[in-house]
């Protein structure tokens, strides 16, 4: 099941070779759906900017991004791949800095550009090592047909983890992600989170496919990366107050889940367990599609909220379900999906990864059992924390009352920016797909199982797929049955008690004289218990005076979570780098001639070296 197109191309070592195999098909599926939906959404979302910003450029880079994404996942040649990869990075950069009059946005764009180029450096090394091994051929098929020594395979795998991991947002390398995603316009954030970071995952899958035999530690490394990215991602997400930044950290969490699946698949392949391997890979690939769908939906929903209220700070929002019924309902679908609850698509892929991990407990050697156990625990904790996190998001943004001072819900209702039909249609189609995969997983599970077998290189008996589908069908039917029972009970209550309107009374307010929306839980206070539990990892910082005595003075409190990877690893490194550069600059020669002399001496050195 492959199609290869090959066209002549003038670039040295390059052929314009495209290949469609089951692996690229999965990513292509996600790309096509999300590009179309985000594009539709963009029509409505960008309407307020009409005439103020150059829409033509934005559209140009949007299409460029779409084309380069498609090229990245179908390229069958190293040079073409790297070209498309860079094109994608640049198009993405220009999409991020759409609001380039803001300092923060420019800074985020620059950070993104730096991070992606650091990653590309590793990719260059990796691909040239590969090509060197394959007698200079730059074709993926040819490289895949050669044998790698275990040390070489290990080096290439580590380079792939570094290079593609920056793009994917694996945990210590994720620092660009929480800055760049909130800076971009929402439909671009959806694309970045749903697709651009998935190209990193695609790269790792492609390397796994090329390297038919990898050392056994590679799988364990992937499992550890998955567990740490997932847990830290969701914990940081809990500590955020900004809606889109929170979603960005959830992308890191989901990348962790995908890495868990890939790790299981890789272990299965190393220890020659075809079913285990295919299930692991299939779970990861299905989660790629699912994450693209629900994270796209969530970012688009967040975009509607921000467009209407002009703020993404959750501590200022509230009660939007009354104003934006469609958006809130669709956001709820996305939130339920990302939490991995049954009937929605996130559940399906997480369930398959769980199945893989449990399967690993029985079929892997001792250390494999340990790591699979670790994976099971961390995946379960991730699910619970994600549920807490989205309870917080939905509760503070859509329920209750508006939390900002001097704004009430009628003000927001009266604003002329409204969620246009295009935006609703885009979100609805994504939500529909989430529900489709969640309710009828048969098609997509089989689709990704084919890709999983393609990645693992071995196929398993046909009837074994039933091991996945039958429990899934059972769970779905049980949950549906419970829902039917629940609805039946509601109907029964209506029949017995009649259709009387509920009584409306004031909430019991603990004896306070004046009632204010600020009494409500904020996003910070909701997550406080969990965040304080993990405050050593999260660099949780709380400032403010305690309220004491019978007649306390005015008080205030603020809390923030800082990214440990950014504060402990990257920033000190960057400061040292700047200091070093300054030192070099001070001792620098100020004559142009000196530089000419360096060139001259080097030239002579080269001549002598080459001819000697």
């Amino acid at each position, binding site marked *: 099941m492959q199609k290869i197109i090959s066209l002549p191309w003038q670039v040295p070592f390059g052929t314009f070779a495209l290949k469609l195999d089951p692996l690229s098909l999965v990513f292509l599926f996600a790309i096509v759906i999300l590009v179309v939906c985000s594009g539709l959404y963009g029509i409505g979302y960008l309407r307020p900017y009409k005439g103020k910003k150059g829409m033509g450029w934005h559209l140009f880079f949007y299409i460029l991004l779409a084309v380069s994404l498609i090229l990245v996942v179908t390229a069958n040649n190293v040079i073409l791949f790297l070209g498309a990869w860079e094109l994608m990075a640049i198009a993405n950069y220009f999409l991020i800095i759409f609001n380039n009059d803001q300092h923060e946005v420019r800074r985020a764009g620059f950070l993104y550009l730096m991070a992606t180029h650091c990653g590309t450096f590793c990719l260059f090394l990796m691909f040239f090592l590969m090509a060197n091994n394959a007698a200079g051929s730059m074709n993926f098929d040819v490289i895949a047909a050669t044998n790698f020594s275990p040390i070489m395979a290990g080096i290439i795998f580590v380079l792939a983890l570094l290079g593609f991991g920056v793009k994917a947002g694996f945990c210590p390398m994720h620092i660009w992600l929480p800055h760049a995603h909130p800076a971009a316009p929402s439909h671009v954030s959806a694309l970045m989170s749903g697709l651009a970071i998935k190209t990193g995952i695609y790269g790792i899958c492609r390397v796994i496919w090329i390297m038919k035999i990898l050392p056994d530690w590679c799988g364990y490394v992937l499992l550890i990366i998955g567990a740490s990215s997932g847990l830290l991602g969701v914990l940081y997400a809990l500590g955020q107050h900004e809606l889109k930044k929170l979603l960005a950290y959830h992308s890191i969490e989901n990348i962790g889940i995908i890495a868990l699946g890939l790790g299981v698949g890789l272990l299965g392949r190393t220890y020659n367990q075809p079913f285990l391997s295919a299930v692991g890979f299939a779970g990861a690939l299905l989660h790629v599609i699912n994450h693209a769908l629900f994270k796209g939906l969530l970012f688009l929903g967040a975009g509607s909220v921000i467009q209407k209220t002009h703020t993404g700070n959750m501590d200022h929002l509230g009660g939007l379900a009354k104003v934006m019924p469609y958006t809130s309902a669709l956001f709820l679908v996305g939130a339920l999906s990302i939490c991995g609850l049954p009937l929605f698509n996130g559940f399906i892929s997480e369930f398959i990864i769980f199945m893989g991990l449990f399967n690993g407990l029985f079929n892997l050697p001792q250390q494999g059992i340990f790591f699979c156990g670790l994976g099971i625990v961390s995946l379960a904790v991730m699910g619970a924390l994600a549920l807490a996190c989205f309870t917080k998001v939905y509760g503070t943004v859509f329920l209750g009352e508006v939390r900002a001072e001097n704004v009430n819900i009628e003000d927001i209702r009266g604003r002329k920016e409204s969620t246009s039909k295009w935006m609703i249609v885009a979100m609805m189609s994504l939500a529909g797909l989430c529900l489709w995969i969640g309710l009828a997983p048969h098609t997509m599970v089989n689709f990704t199982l084919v890709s999983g077998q393609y990645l693992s290189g071995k196929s398993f008996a046909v009837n074994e797929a039933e091991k996945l589908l039958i429990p899934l069908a059972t769970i779905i039917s049980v949950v549906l049955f419970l829902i039917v029972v629940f609805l039946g009970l509601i109907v029964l209550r209506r029949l017995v008690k009649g259709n009387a309107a509920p009584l409306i009374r004031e909430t019991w307010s603990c004896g306070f004289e004046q009632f204010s929306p600020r009494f409500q839980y904020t996003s910070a206070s909701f997550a406080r218990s969990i965040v304080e539990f993990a405050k050593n990892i999260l660099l949780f910082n709380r400032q403010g005076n305690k309220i004491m005595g019978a007649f306390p003075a005015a008080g205030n409190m603020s809390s923030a979570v800082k990214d440990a990877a950014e504060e402990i690893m990257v920033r000190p490194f960057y400061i040292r780098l700047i200091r070093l550069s300054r030192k070099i*600059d001070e001792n620098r020669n*100020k*004559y*142009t*001639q000196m530089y000419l002399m360096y060139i*001259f001496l080097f030239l002579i050195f080269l001549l*002598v070296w080459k001819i000697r």
Partner: protein
Amino acid sequence: MSCILVVFFALMILAAYRLSGMIQIFAIQSFVLGFVPFFMHADHLGLRDVALAVGTMILKGALVPYILFWAIRHVSMRSEVKPLIGFGMSVICGAVLIAGAFWVSSSLKLPGKVASDLLIPCSLSTVLLGFLLMVIRTKAVTQVLGYLVMENGIFLFALSLFDVMPILIEMGILLDIFVAVFIMAIVVNHINEEFEKTQGLDKRWAKMGESL
């Protein structure tokens, strides 16, 4: 013979005290260079050889020196050459480089047969001497002259591979155009002494430190 002369003149430029003297020597060097194609293909002189020779003589022997003279008059430079190292020392450096060039070219492998054994070492020495001129003299015009001497060396090299690699000649013409632009820039910007010393980047570093 004329190859040796080209190298000799390049050395003379290194030792010249005055700008105008340098330009005159360069003009003579280019003129001598124009004769090389005649000697090379003495038995079967083609139209291309003649055109090349005449073109070189007119362009480099007359036009470029004339423009350079015009340039130094136009921006009224002082005529001393500002050396970074002394004249005697620079000639010795040049001699060492020539010896090096002969040694290197003895072990070069070439794609085709060369008309004269001296051609490759001479061209290499001329290139190196031109580069040396750029390194050890500070004035803008001397930079241009060093560049032109280098280019004469490249021209010699191209001549040796005239039949095998035609594209080298075209590259030489491109270099000529670049030199023309270079000279124009000197005139337009009134660079009458040296290029500015490159500025310290302190301010830029400070800015970068703020931004992140």
